[in-house]
């Protein structure tokens, strides 16, 4: 039996539509117009025990809603889901003892107290044996290198340090399933890297099942083999990371620098020129003709340095959205931006 099983899960909301201006507000007092927003439109998904799966999509795609459904925070409009055999929105204590949700945009630690006080509270709520609690806390604080910060009030921690403490709070009871909703949002590159390393090590040690949403493709590349992409409430891809590039990354990026430091004006005949700082040049080349193009460049020019790379993942995913016929095209313009790294 899969650890997470989702069948035709759907969630819609009624949202009050308010027009601009005072007159519209007064009209709204007497008569309101509601719009139905379908956040999740009947998705199917299965995760096996020990999988680390990335859940990607633009803002408003339904990622967080799905995680909230799986955590039992909200109930669905229709469809079913089982996590370790439990229906999440029944909110069984037996289920709530076995999973955790971490949200990069919301925090649960007591703002004015040192994190260790919140950890103690978690120990009581989850009724973790003192020995086990000390062991787990020490292991986690050691892995995340925050042991010396335990007695510092949370409000005096940096964003990265606070996120680490949030992770520890969520992992103290050793959950078997972990939902991570943008755990690296707003963090600098070093803090992101630290959290990525921690998540990878932790997952390998404990073999927990993790569903991760992130806008940072580096998180995804570093951590997940399997990628599920959701857009406008529907799953449009479920497979390996390489699979996306093979299927939707129809080109490669060839960058090179000539020995004489010049950039010939006729480079356009090899492929589409991409912006790049001279003396380097960058070309977008169809995957099928990469070998041929490389051969021609090497034959015609003295090359100092050359590299062939896959296109950035965010571009590939944007391409995927372009090819998905049933998606609203007016939204597509937002996609590369939404998926890009900040």
């Amino acid at each position: 039996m899969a650890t997470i099983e989702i069948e035709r899960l759907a969630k819609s909301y009624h949202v009050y539509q308010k027009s601009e201006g005072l007159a519209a507000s007064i009209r709204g007092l007497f008569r309101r117009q509601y719009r139905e927003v379908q956040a999740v439109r009947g998705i199917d998904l299965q995760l096996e025990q020990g999988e680390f799966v990335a859940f990607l999509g633009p803002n408003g795609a339904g990622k967080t809603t799905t995680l909230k459904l799986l955590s039992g925070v909200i109930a669905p409009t229709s469809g079913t889901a089982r996590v370790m055999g439990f229906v999440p929105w029944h909110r069984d204590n037996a289920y709530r003892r076995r999973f955790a949700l971490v949200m990069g945009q919301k925090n649960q630690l007591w703002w004015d107290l040192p994190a260790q006080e919140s950890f103690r509270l978690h120990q009581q709520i989850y009724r973790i044996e003192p020995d086990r609690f000390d062991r787990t806390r020490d292991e986690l604080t050691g892995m995340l290198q925050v042991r010396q910060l335990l007695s510092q009030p949370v409000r005096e921690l940096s964003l990265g340090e606070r996120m680490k403490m949030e992770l520890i709070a969520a992992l103290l009871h050793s959950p078997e399933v972990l939902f991570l909703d943008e755990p690296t949002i707003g963090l600098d590159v070093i803090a992101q890297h630290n959290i990525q390393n921690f998540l990878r090590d932790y997952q390998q040690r404990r073999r927990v099942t993790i569903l991760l949403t992130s806008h940072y493709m580096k998180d995804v590349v570093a951590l997940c083999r399997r990628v599920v992409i959701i857009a406008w409430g529907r799953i449009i891809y479920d497979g390996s990371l390489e699979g996306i590039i093979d299927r939707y990354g129809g080109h490669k990026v060839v960058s090179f620098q000539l020995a004489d430091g010049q950039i010939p004006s006729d480079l356009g005949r090899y492929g589409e020129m991409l912006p790049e700082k001279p003396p380097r040049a960058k070309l977008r080349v169809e995957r099928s003709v990469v070998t041929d193009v490389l051969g021609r460049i090497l034959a015609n020019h003295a090359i100092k340095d050359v590299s062939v790379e896959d296109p950035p993942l965010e571009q590939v995913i944007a391409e995927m959205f372009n090819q998905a016929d049933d998606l609203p095209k007016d939204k597509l313009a937002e996609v590369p931006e939404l998926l890009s790294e900040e």
Partner: protein
Amino acid sequence: MHTRPHYFRVLLTFLRNSLVRDMTFRANFLIDTISSMSWVFMNLGFYILVFRYTPTIGANTGWGKHEFFLFLATTLLINGVIRGLFLSNAIEFSEQIRTGTLDFALLKPIDTQFLVSLGRIEWSAIGPFACGVLLLVYSLFQVHYLPGPLQMVLYGFYLLCGVAIYYSLMIAMAATSVWLGRNKTLLDFWFYITNFSRYPMEIYTGTYGDPIRWVFTFLVPVLIAVNVPARLLVRPLSPQSREDWLLLPFAVAATLGSLIVSRWVFNRSLLSYRSASS
């Protein structure tokens, strides 16, 4: 591993963590204590003034100056517990619904109402509560009356009933934020309603008073929250009526009813919770 949380230990941790927080912001704690004590003394001063003009509240009601101070002491005790344990939690609960941070409470393997109702405890409420105890003892001396053991036990029990009635109303009102979207006026509304319960029932008579007494006894039973325990101490000094005896079982029924209704409203609100934003 135990599967049921140890509620008492969790409560102790809430008390401890709240104390640590209050001691961190000691100036704030001091100002809080001073302002709430000032409110107590202003109230007391006001009623001392009132009793310069009249010996009792209404003729033959039994509510003389010190009897009324026993009533006031009961109000202080109940309000002290409510303010210390539940008021800021109810306001916070309403805010958690609006901002979507209630998510975390819903994830914990513990009764959500317990977690939401007692998460943050205001130690500064001890000041007014202690004033209530002192005023109670002082007024009992003034009326030369020592309650018997049964009366003391019943007084304690009905104080708890009063707290439960107030709490139920408060948590149910906070839970309505789920449907109202915004419920910033919780504190004001709370003040308006409980304002009626700060006086003996006897003052609510006549064409204007009767409906108020009826509504706040049977519909929203806040009037009995303070009146029943206070009357247990005071009324034995004056003739009993049959109504007084009926109030005792009615207060228990009203307490149970309030707790059940508020639990139902609370659970309904959790089902409708939308978890704002990500």
